[in-house]
């Protein structure tokens, strides 16, 4: 299942192309990604992506293993994270979060594939980055979104300058809990990791201009009801279905659906 660690002789300093760097940063940001999604990031076929991630492994920048259904997962080692200059703790993607991680990655890929996103040069700020910024200071009642999208001021889109919160919902929570999270995201004024006194400051504009919910069919009704429950704040909540390929393939399936 797990390819063995490369021999010391094979661990040579990696010569990384621009595509490799982008791929490594993407994988680091998302905690880890499955091979088909890495292939989509690199813009190559899966067989080529397998070879590229193999070179990352040989350079000891990444590890890969079949953690669940579908293709192998790739994640960065401590050396890889250090090479990227990212202050994250190197961990294997948690089995309990594989489905969620895949869904969030699929959302990011779908968003980044749009012409408006590319034209604006928007930036995806991942949950991992948000948590790293907070250190261990995540309040017990504090919710961290699955990602933020920052739209540059200079973009020509109507939503230029906005910051969006992204939420991928696979499972049904209670309406009350979902509404509480919505309200928290929509009323927050401070950045993640800011002093407690600045999290919600009266008179300051909200941090997130809108929150984008990408839901599984099971979770969609609950999210829709929660949007209704938050009153006028609900005008800033967008609900869409998760893009194709966001779910883990059924057990036994070799590859996730396209």
């Amino acid at each position: 299942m797990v390819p063995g660690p490369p021999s010391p002789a094979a661990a040579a300093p990696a010569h990384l192309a621009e595509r490799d760097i982008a791929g490594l940063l993407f994988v680091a940001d998302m905690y880890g990604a499955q091979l088909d999604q890495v292939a989509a990031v690199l813009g190559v076929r899966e067989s080529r992506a397998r070879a590229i991630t193999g070179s990352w492994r040989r350079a000891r920048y990444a590890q890969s293993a079949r953690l669940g259904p579908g293709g192998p997962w790739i994640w960065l080692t401590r050396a890889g994270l250090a090479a990227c200059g990212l202050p994250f703790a190197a961990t294997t993607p948690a089995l309990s979060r594989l489905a969620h991680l895949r869904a969030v990655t699929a959302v990011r890929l779908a968003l980044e594939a749009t012409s408006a996103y590319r034209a604006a040069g928007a930036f995806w700020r991942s949950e991992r980055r948000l948590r790293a910024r907070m250190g261990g200071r995540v309040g017990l009642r504090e919710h961290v979104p699955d990602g933020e999208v920052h739209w540059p001021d200079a973009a020509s889109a109507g939503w230029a300058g906005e910051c969006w919160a992204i939420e991928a919902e696979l499972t049904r929570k209670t309406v009350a809990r979902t509404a509480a999270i919505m309200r928290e995201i929509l009323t927050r004024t401070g950045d993640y990791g800011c002093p407690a006194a600045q999290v919600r400051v009266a008179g300051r504009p909200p941090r997130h201009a809108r929150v984008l919910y990408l839901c599984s069919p099971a979770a969609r009704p609950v999210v829709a009801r929660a949007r209704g429950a938050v009153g006028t704040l609900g005008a800033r909540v967008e609900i869409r279905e998760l893009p194709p390929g966001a779910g883990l393939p059924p057990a036994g399936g070799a590859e996730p659906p396209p």
Partner: protein
Amino acid sequence: MIRRYLGLLAALAAVRLLARLIAVTAGVALVVAAAPVSLVAALAVAGAWTAGWPPRRLYHAALWCLPMVAVWLAATAVAARSWWQVAAAPYLAWLAMWRQAAAGSVVLAAATIAPAAIPLGLLVGALAWSRRIYAMRTGTGGLSPDAPAVFDRRQWRHQVRSARARIAAPGAVPLLSRSGAIVTGAVIRAVGHPAPPLAAIPYRRLRSHQVVIGATGTGKTTLLLRLWAGFLARGLQRHADGAGRRPLLVVLDCKGGADSRRVADRARRVLRDAGARSTAIWPDEASLSLWALPPPQLTTTLVDMIEHGTGGAAYYTDVMEAVVALAVDPPTGPPASAADFLARLDAGWLTAAYSASPDGEEAALLRSAFRHIGDIALRFRTLFRRLGEGLDGPGGFGEADAWYCILEGTSEIAVAEAQARALVDLLASYSAHGQGSQREILLAVDEFSAVARRLPIWHLYERARSLGLAVQVSAQSWQGLAPRDDDRYRIAATADGGIWLLRTPHPEPATGLAGSRPATDTSRRVLGAALWSREGSSRMRDEPVADPAIVRSLDVGQAAYIYRGGVTFVQVKRLVAAPAALAREPAPAAGPAPGPTAAHPEPPTPGGQPRAAPPPDAGSLLDEAFGKEPG
């Protein structure tokens, strides 16, 4: 006859003068003959004076030279193969030193005599420095009667300078010593305590009650943060070693406001660096569930959270308690939230809940209290509205390594009092019944007397003691410890872990607890203007171990630690935490601008709730990425 007598006097004076001259000459000759030793001794005394060292440090330095002396003697024995030459080695080295110095080889001469001269010089210097300090302490030294006081003030300045220099060196003051003691800073001066360079207190003292008194701006928060971080770091270390239970720090900051929130943020960063996985800030970011209390305790807590009177009003208190007990512990189980509880304070609900036994005691109680239920419900509805959602769950003390609870004791005293009562009851319940029995808990309360009307601090102390909790009470002054002087003394006198005093205008009651020590007072005879005889008399008296005058004049970051009849003055080392992340700058408050900036988040309403104007339509983008919005 007179001439003879005058002649005798003159002869005696001449003899005395001659004897003095001989003694001085002999002394000078000895100093010159033993020049290397004299030089080292002079340097040692000068160094000790400049740095404010106690003589003990010079004795230790002399002792640490003994290995060098041993090696030197061994080398001499190997080279000479004669015990006589080993015994005479210092003398021979002295002779050789003079010969080499006369020949102009000063460096070689110094190297030759160093193994003998350095330890001897340090020893002589230590003796001289001890003698000087003793003379000043007893009032027999110095040229004028106020010389001892001047000497002491100057030495204090030197000691402070040394302590500041010691803590300024990067990495010189770790949080924990090798033995696991919590290092608070550098020792300035110690009386009745050992005086190592760094002040460290064993972990077990933080597991006992402590008192911290210091006015605003004296460095109290810095000291407290260091103690809390040390408690968590050492507790986690012990837990990892299997030597202790997991530590839990609970801070009740009873001032509230923006300042408390700044301290909370700093505490979280400091505690994280000390190893705490999570620090919950209540009620801003975390909540606790009052409804997790066992029903009997929940009833008591709920009733105590409501302000009620005495005398005739006690009747209504009893009625309220009876109704609350009925609502809290019906056959269907206790309430799960404030809304659930308020829904139960309804005659219909209660009648239905106890309908199974219409002739029972509860039903009789219900009939008696029937007409008061509406009023009771109104009072609790008001209370819960003012309390907010901080006590309405979910959450418990077990979910974090540290809790920083902010009570608005300055602006919302009644609310803060109710919150304090509930928090203490929750912690007591957690400690006694929950997993808290598996935790080593330190409860730190700051300015608790501000909210202690319904829960006397002495009661808190007693409860904590019975539950095995350590309590650290801090206040801005002696009077801030408790409303009554009796309680203040009881709190301070039972602080087994010691008392920390920062600058405070009235330290006498606390310094008095350090006790006194014998001291010598010496009087001198006045011979004339600015002339003082060496003759006089001495007497013993008691002086306080912890000098209140010093405490009153402590600088920022200096503290006196009183423990078991001794005091250590400490220059506290500030813990530097990881910097806080900065919030995004708010957008200019100007009206909507044309173009892209118009899409910036909408300006908030005056109440603080952001206005929920619909944002610009991003449907085209979302449709392209994810398809149409599902119907």
